[in-house]
């Protein structure tokens, strides 16, 4: 007996309707608006690829993508690297010698910043980094304007993001390590392998799927980053911490350059889709 599947479309219908209204139509409108000059009121004027041509010449746009690269380092690369070492140390050192409870407690402590709304994390650091009454300057007896100095602002935001992101890879990697057959480690120990050799030749290859997932999700998060920039620096000083998402927000809601903002948002969306597919391809090939 063949199972009839047509009746199941009914269950998908409410979502598909909402999906078209909330995602498909707005996205197409956004792409459409990117070919126009439009202030948000009145009739948009069709200008073809002018916005995109302008983007290519706009220094702020290029800078904002350079800052994204820095944030990918801070939000994806560095937390993954440190997270691997931490997870491995917690899993096969602390848990074995000091008990799983100790390892779990440390893991929870590293994870805690992740539970904060990212805007609240920004409020916390905005206060700590305040040039006149902030705690950081007092602790280190410094007199730096961490977020107000153009040479320092991006590095400061990056440091805050490392703090914010670190717990996520630790949790994922520790879960991944539970899958790994302990026989590998036992065999390596009999051969007298050092901690580093085990880490390099067993841990990393065994949890490669988790590493890919963390790198992918964190890279996307870094490309989209908005909340911390809004709260900490609003893209400034000057353009020192401008990112594409904030740049498009600025064009939409403050400069009334809706067409231009839409072009920025469209490019960002395309980059994210391309990055996602590239990652998935690489992951497929690796397995």
């Amino acid at each position, binding site marked *: 007996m063949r*199972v009839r*599947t*047509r009746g*199941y479309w*009914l*269950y998908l219908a*409410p979502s598909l309707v*909402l*999906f078209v209204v*909330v*995602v498909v*139509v*707005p*996205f197409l409108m*956004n792409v459409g*608006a990117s070919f126009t000059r439009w202030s948000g009121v009145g009739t948009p004027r069709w200008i073809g690829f002018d916005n995109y041509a302008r983007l290519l010449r706009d220094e702020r746009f290029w800078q904002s993508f350079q800052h994204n690269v820095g944030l990918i380092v801070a939000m994806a690369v560095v937390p993954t690297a440190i997270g691997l070492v931490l997870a491995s*140390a*917690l899993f096969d*050192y*602390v848990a074995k*010698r000091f008990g799983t409870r100790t390892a779990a407690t*440390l893991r929870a*402590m*590293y994870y*805690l*910043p992740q*539970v904060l*709304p*990212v805007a*609240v994390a*920004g*409020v*916390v650091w*905005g*206060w*700590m980094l*305040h040039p006149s*009454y902030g*705690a950081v300057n007092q*602790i280190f007896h410094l007199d730096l304007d961490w977020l107000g100095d153009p040479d320092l602002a991006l590095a400061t935001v990056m440091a805050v993001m490392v*703090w914010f992101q*670190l717990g996520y890879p630790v949790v994922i990697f520790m*879960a*991944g390590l539970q899958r790994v057959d302990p026989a590998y480690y036992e065999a390596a120990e009999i051969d007298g392998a050092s901690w580093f050799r085990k880490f390099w030749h067993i841990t990393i290859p065994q949890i490669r799927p*988790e590493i890919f*997932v*963390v790198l992918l*999700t964190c890279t996307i998060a870094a490309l*989209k980053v*908005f*909340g911390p920039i*809004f*709260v900490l620096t609003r893209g400034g000083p000057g353009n020192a911490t401008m990112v594409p*998402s904030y740049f498009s927000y600025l064009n*939409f*809601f403050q400069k009334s350059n809706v067409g231009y*903002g839409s072009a920025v*948002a469209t490019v960002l*969306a395309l980059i*994210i889709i391309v990055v996602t597919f590239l990652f998935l391809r690489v992951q497929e090939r690796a397995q």
Partner: protein
Amino acid sequence: MRGPGRWAVLFALAVLAVVMLFPFALVAMNAVKSPAEYSTQGPLSLPDGLYLQGLADFWTRVDFAGKLWNSLVISVSVAVFAVVLSVLNAYALGIGRIRGRLSILVLFLVANTLPQEALAYPLYYLAKAAGLYDTQLAVIIVMTVIQAAFGTYLLSAVLGQFPKEILEAAAIDGAGRLRALWQIVVPISRPTLNVLLIFFFIWTWNEFFLPLIFLISNDTQTVPVALAVLQGEKFMDATMSSASALLGIVPAVAFFLIFQRTLTRGVTVGAIK
């Protein structure tokens, strides 16, 4: 490694944990200092006593109770609606295996990874046209669809593994599709649904961009938006800044402690599927 070496690793890991938690401790310590105490003793001293005026002032000035309520209404609604939609979709895709299911899944996944900026202005425009601008309903609808896109992806994989025999037995007993969904699939998948519910709740609570552009009036704002918008205002002194940070931290940490077990399990389920 034996002897002192064995403790050195633990010590290094503990130092890092203290560094990670230091901002939390600092915020809590300074939210209960008076401005005078802060200016004389600085941020690092332990508080002399409990000075709660700063917290109370901030609470009333921003109507924090109202913001909590707004966040709660939005997050609970989104979590419930998004789980319902995810279950309906996953029933059709995972169990119904309708044609084109793979393309539909990819479409949902792309929607979930799309930057919200690429939808924001049209949504803002449409919400204004529909009279939904500056209402919580607008945020609830948009967030529900975005969260359900992820939920569908995850649940379809789970329901794809659902034991067919149970459903066939139910069909022989004369149960229709809706009854099979409601009386068999939903109860059996309850653990996964609970994980999704909690995740949607927390993600929505933490959401910043959409509430920021949709909820501009004081009566509709959520906690993160209210705190972020106030950041850097003139009236904010050191104690009030830390008070505001503390009020943002407390609900998030409370949810973490309440849902800890589900969350740590869920983070990894969500990541690998």
